[in-house]
Every structure is written in structure tokens, then in C-alpha cells.
């Protein structure tokens, strides 16, 4: 997953310098996290306010008289100072009132809520497959360290990680959707009101794309953790004493892989969220990503603000969780 590189530096060393250890420090992190979220909301609000196009005129249409336009401007509160508008917006958001869509007049919360459900469902389903798969592959790669299986997996992961999301997605569509086989629908058509998991066939290709990207990244972290443990004195002693490798793997190595895996999963969730825009666009999946693209195209300001805020907040929180775990458990993601 190309975008993974941004957060975690896939494969590269995330060094904790020897002379400094991160201790607990959860509370300060959370507090600064909340502050950062507020800053994020400010950025989102003020940037999107600068969207071209005069809002009241856009809503009323071509035939509106200047009086009507001005009246609507006052009604929408657009004549008040920007900070006041921001305050109104953010208090509304915290209260649950996200405004009304400019394009079809429906409450933003309804429009966005459904899409959030769809997007999160997609990612969670993908994670449910990717995490166990990563464990299996990670254990396998660790067990067969430096042999053919390990190298093959590594090679595939380098390739898959490098490919941009839409490249991987398009290849999968071509392979399973349109050109080579026609097993799965190339477009996810989920009727309004239907929950995504009622249409499993529609989900296969987008989920497969996310699973591929997540697994190739996650399995390596599992592998690295496992190797860490396998190389440790404790395990070396156990091996010398005659304990079977399998037992060592499952009893001792595996539990140690859990924490970095949880941390990495949080990161992967975050990054899937980022890659969602392209993946959903490619597959026509009705989620947050396509809503983002649509609201930009239609200049639907309230929806755009809500979507970006939700994506950024979730993304940030996932990263925060990963950081907190790192601080608490002192784990590192290492390159091998």
C-alpha cells in the first residue's frame, strides 16, 4: 500500500533512540489530541468556506433576484463574522446537528451517516480477513525465515505495497470483474437503504483490494515480532532444551506479536480510510470516499465539511491509538 509509507514508513526503521524511552504519557497525548482535532476542524471549516461559487445564489438558482439572494444569505448566517460562523458550526457538530445538504436539502447527518456505515463496514470486513491472514502469513514467514516461502511473500509484498491503490484495484477489476473472469461485479451497487453486507458479491473486489494492501504490510510486522522473540535468549534456551518449534511459536512468540499487530491494525485502519477515496471511486462504492468526491463536484459545503472532519478525526484517532500503544508497551516496528 503506497499510502502506508506516509504514516509508518513501511519497512523502514521507526527508531526509538537508545538514550530515550517513551514512558506512559497517555493523558498528555490525549489532551493534545483533542486540541489538534479542534485545530483540524478550524482548518476544515475555513478552507472549505473559500470554495468558489456564491452559496446563496447556488442554492436559489439562476433566476433568483438579488433580494432573495441577500435574504438567504442572512438566513444561512453567512453575513456574520467568520469566527462566529465557525463557533456555530462546531457547536452544532458537537450537538449532532451537522446542517443541511445544499444539494438535496436532507440533513447532513443522514446523508453522511449512511456513508460512514458503508465505509466503516468495508474496512472492518477487510480487517477481519486481513488480520488473521497476516498472522498466518507472518508466522509462516517467520518459521520459514529466509527460505523460498519467505522470499516469495516478501517479493509479493514489495510489489503490492508499491502499487498505488487504483492500480491494484484496476488490476483486480480486470482480473475478476471484466476481462479475465467475470465472477464479481466491477461496480458495487448497493440500493439506498440496504446495508452493504446484504450484497456480498458487490463487496468482494473492494474488500480484496484493501485486504491485499493491509496484509502485505501487516504480515511483515507479525513476522518481525515473531523473529524478535524467536531470536531472544529465552526462546533460544527453550529450543536448546528441546521444546518443539511449533510450541515455541504458538505459546511464546505469537502472544508477543499481538500488541504490535493491534497497533499496526489501527494504523492500517487509518490508512485504509485515506485510500478509501480512490478505492470507492474506482468501484463506485457508496461510501465516504465517493461522498467526498461528489460533494466537491457539487460544491455541497456542509456535506464536504462533515465528511472531511469525520475522515480526519477517525484517521487521527486511529493514529493516536497506535501511538498510545507504542508508548504503553514500548513496541517498535522493525525492519528485517
Amino acid at each position, binding site marked *: 500500500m*503506497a*499510502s502506508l*509509507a*506516509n*504514516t509508518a*514508513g*513501511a*519497512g*523502514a*526503521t521507526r*527508531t*526509538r*533512540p*537508545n*538514550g*530515550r524511552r517513551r514512558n506512559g504519557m497517555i493523558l498528555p497525548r490525549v489532551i*493534545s489530541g483533542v486540541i*489538534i482535532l479542534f*485545530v*483540524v476542524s478550524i*482548518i*476544515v471549516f475555513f*478552507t*472549505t468556506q*473559500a*470554495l*468558489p461559487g456564491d452559496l446563496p445564489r447556488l442554492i436559489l438558482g439562476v433566476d433568483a433576484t438579488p433580494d432573495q439572494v441577500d435574504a438567504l444569505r442572512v438566513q444561512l448566517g453567512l453575513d456574520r463574522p467568520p469566527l462566529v460562523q465557525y463557533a456555530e458550526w462546531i457547536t452544532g457538530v458537537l450537538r449532532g446537528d451537522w446542517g443541511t445538504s445544499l444539494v438535496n436539502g436532507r440533513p447532513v447527518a443522514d446523508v453522511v451517516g449512511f456513508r460512514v456505515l458503508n465505509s466503516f463496514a468495508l474496512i472492518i470486513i477487510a480487517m477481519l480477513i486481513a488480520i488473521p491472514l497476516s498472522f498466518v502469513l507472518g508466522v509462516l514467514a517467520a518459521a520459514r525465515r529466509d527460505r523460498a516461502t519467505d522470499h516469495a511473500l516478501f517479493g509479493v509484498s*514489495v*510489489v503490492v505495497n*508499491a*502499487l*498505488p*491503490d*487504483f*492500480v491494484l484495484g484496476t*488490476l483486480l*477489476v*480486470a482480473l475478476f470483474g*471484466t*476481462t479475465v473472469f467475470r465472477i464479481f461485479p466491477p461496480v458495487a451497487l448497493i440500493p439506498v437503504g440496504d446495508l452493504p453486507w446484504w450484497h456480498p458479491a458487490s463487496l468482494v473486489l473492494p474488500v480484496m483490494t484493501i485486504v491485499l494492501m493491509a496484509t502485505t504490510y501487516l504480515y511483515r510486522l507479525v513476522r518481525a515480532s515473531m523473529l524478535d522473540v524467536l531470536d531472544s535468549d529465552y526462546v533460544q534456551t527453550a529450543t536448546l532444551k528441546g521444546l518443539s518449534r511449533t510450541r515455541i511459536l504458538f505459546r511464546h512468540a505469537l502472544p508477543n506479536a499481538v500488541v504490535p499487530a493491534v497497533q499496526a491494525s489501527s494504523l492500517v485502519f487509518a*490508512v485504509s480510510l*485515506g*485510500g478509501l*477515496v*480512490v478505492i470507492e*471511486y*474506482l468501484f463506485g462504492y457508496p461510501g465516504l470516499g465517493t461522498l*467526498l*468526491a461528489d460533494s*466537491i463536484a457539487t460544491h455541497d459545503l456542509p456535506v464536504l465539511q462533515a465528511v*472531511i472532519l469525520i*475522515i*480526519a*478525526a477517525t*484517521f*487521527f484517532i486511529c*493514529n493516536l491509538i497506535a501511538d498510545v500503544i507504542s508508548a504503553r508497551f514500548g513496541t517498535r516496528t*522493525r*525492519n*528485517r
Partner: protein
Amino acid sequence: MTLHESVHTVAPAAARRGGMARRVLKNGQTTTGMALMLGIVLLAAIGPFLAPHLPTEIVGRPFTGPSDGILLGTDVLGRDVLSRVLSGGRLLIVMSVAATLIGLVLGTIIGVTSAYVSGLGDFLTMRVLDVILAFPSIVFALLFVSVLGANPVLLVVLVGVAHTPSVARVMRGAAMTVVTRDYVLWARSIGIPPFTILRAEVFPNIVSPLMVEAGLRLMWSVGTIAALSFLGYGIQPPTADWGLMASENRNALSLQPLSVVVPIAVIGIFTIGANLFAEGLGRIVARTEGAGA
């Protein structure tokens, strides 16, 4: 510690660097990676001169298969796919390299300075960077592109800025290892100018992680800019661009797959090359750091 001894600490770094170059060139992964990248860069640079037709010229009916003179068939508007592939890399590669450089330079400066300064300055800088990191990179770019329009310079700056926090974090981490060492603290205390310290002690030690980051960032830049073009917010039609071609022609996957597969293949080869390079280099660095001083 005497000045004499501090010179000695520099030398091993330099020696390591010389050895590093040798190791990089001997390593299969890094060389393959560099070769792939170089190949695509050459394609992008020389391609426009080799193209038999203009990239926007209409040469036949849309989505026709290969014929003589039109080796890869036509695209959605009847233009020569081969010519468009040959011409479609320049802007993408140039923009990606520029964005990567911006990210690396800004990130290194900020990260190293932050490590050096430490304390409150460090803390605040990292928090500011966290704000940028709160946005997934594509969303970050889209946020500003939607408001300001899709122009190449803006895109380069946005992608570069999106890189900066991650690069800064890595560089800061690398710089930390040096900045906290006794001899550096000693050098600071006796008044050696910061820049000298940075140049002599810090930078040699961060070159390797920097190179690794460079590879990763390049891979990611190409991916992001191509993805933005794919979404329609990057390079605009009718300019030939690999990411845009993937989007324009993707409905004809069964009809004229070449119009999609060739552009995404070249994007893929480049990003795979960059990743191979970064991976290989990362391993070399890990091995060296593990084995060396």
C-alpha cells in the same frame, strides 16, 4: 573529550558512507530498484521525442486495437496510446520528484532542528506537524485542490507539505541519536556554532535514513499524484498523463485493455522500483547499524 577524539567520531561515519555506496551498488534489491526507476525516468524524459504522433492528436476511431503505425491501439478519443504513454510520464515524474524534494528538504530541516532545539520548541513543532498528519494525504490534497483548483505547482507544494511531517519524524528520530550524545552536548557547551555541529556530526548520521525515506517518499509521491489525476483533480485532460489515462480508459478494460494496462504498468514499475530501492537500502542500513559502531 578532546577535539582530536571528536574528529575520530566523524571519520567512521565517512568511512561508513563510502562503504555504504559500495554496499548499495552490490545489493541486488537496490540495484534492481534503481534500474527500474531509471528506466521509467528515461522513458518519461525521452519518450515525447520518440512519440510517432502528438499526444492529443486524433488518429482513428476510439478504442481500436493495435494496427500498423498505431502499435498500442487508440484510446477513448481515438488518440495513439503509444504516443500518450511516451508523453505521459514527464509531468508526473517531474512533479513527483519535486514534491519529494520539497518534502525531504522541509522535513529534514524541521526534524533535525526540532531534535536539536528539543524541549518546548520540539514539542510544539511536532504538534503542528501532527495537525497535518491528521489528514490522510489524499484528503489533505483534495481539501485544498477543491478550493484552489488543480494546478501543477499547487499540487507539488501540497504533496510536498503532506510528506513533511513523516519525514520530519524520521529525521528527528535519527538526529536524536546523535544530538543526545556526550560529545555533541559538549560541543554545544563550548560554543561551537550549531551549523558546524549539524554539518559535522548530525548530517552524516542521517544520510542513510534520509535515502531510505527518499525512496519511500518518491514511491508515495508518484502514487498520490497519479491517484489525484485518476480522480480528476490532478493533471487535467487533454494532457497525456499515466494516471489520467488509467481513469479515462478504464471502462474499456475488456475492449482495449492496452489503453489502461500500459499506463498503470509503467506507474507500477516505477513505484516498485522505488520501493525495492528503499527496502534494500533499509536492510543495508539496519545491518550496518546493527554491526557497526
